């Protein structure tokens, strides 16, 4: 085990030695990548700090920014929203009138309302009408 680790160490020393002398272009590219990654972190931290400092104002500003960015599709979104609202309202009123009709029928019928809820009633009615 010790021998194996010694051998590995020697190989790694050689690798380290070679890696220390990388091509300038590669080093520049690695440096640029590192700076980009660090820059992104700085950017994110600044945004987070702004958000924290501004609170609700930040949310409003971001919403305004979003609406401004998507202003081309906003009329279409508003029309669709209005249509959906109109549909929901008609559904609401039509179902209410259907309920009213149902209630009037139940109250105006000769039978008590419980009779319509009793599942055996129809069978009993059919049997008694045969007699």
């Amino acid at each position, binding site marked *: 085990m010790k021998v*194996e*680790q010694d*051998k*590995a*160490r*020697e*190989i*790694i020393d*050689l*690798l*380290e*030695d*070679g*890696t*220390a002398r*990388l*091509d300038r272009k*590669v*080093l520049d*590219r*690695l440096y640029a*990548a*590192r*700076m*980009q*990654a*660090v820059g*992104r*972190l*700085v950017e*994110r*931290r600044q945004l987070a700090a702004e958000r924290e400092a501004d609170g609700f104002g930040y949310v409003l500003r971001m919403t305004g920014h979003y609406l401004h960015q998507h202003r081309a599709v906003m009329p279409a979104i508003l029309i669709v929203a209005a249509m959906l609202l109109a549909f929901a309202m008609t559904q609401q009123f039509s179902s209410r009138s259907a309920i009213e009709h149902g209630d009037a029928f139940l109250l105006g019928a000769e039978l008590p309302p419980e009779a319509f809820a009793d599942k055996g009633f129809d069978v009993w009615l059919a049997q008694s009408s045969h007699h």
Partner: protein
Amino acid sequence: MATPQELSDFLAQVERRAFKQTVYAVRDEHAALDIVQDAMMKLSEKYADRPVAEYPMLFQRILQNTTKDFWRRQKVRNLWTSLLSSFGSSDEDDESDPLEILGGDPDNDDGQPEAELQRRQTFALIEDAIGRLPARQREAFILRYWEDMDVAETAAVMGCSEGSVKTHCSRAVHTLAAILEKHGFSKSGM
């Protein structure tokens, strides 16, 4: 939570090894640079809030996953290339030069002292040998000995058992040592 300076220091510390490690895996310097850059960005965007102590393992895992993504994309691209090549001949010869992949910097070879030349040859030999290792052995060897992770950390990054890590490392070291000895680099010569 890491500061930008801590992130920068960490990346500066690992970037060269990460690059070489990726070159051994993909055998293409440009692709390796792209992969390392992607891995750096992912670390910065998704894991910057984690403690700095976790960075080595996180970065290794990201690097390995990004390399795997590269292979997946290559696989799909190769599939399309082979499909499309049947529709027409490809006379373009813009593929990367195999000599470039093998490494070395011929411009700087002139006038180097003998010792320097010998060192370069040894380095090229080791790099070639590492590149020829099976992928899992190479990963285990690099993580365990180059990244200085312990067996448990290496196993966690590789997603395998500690026993497998030990086996992979042992085989890798024996293979590399045998190759070096075969080329006349005894223990003292290394």
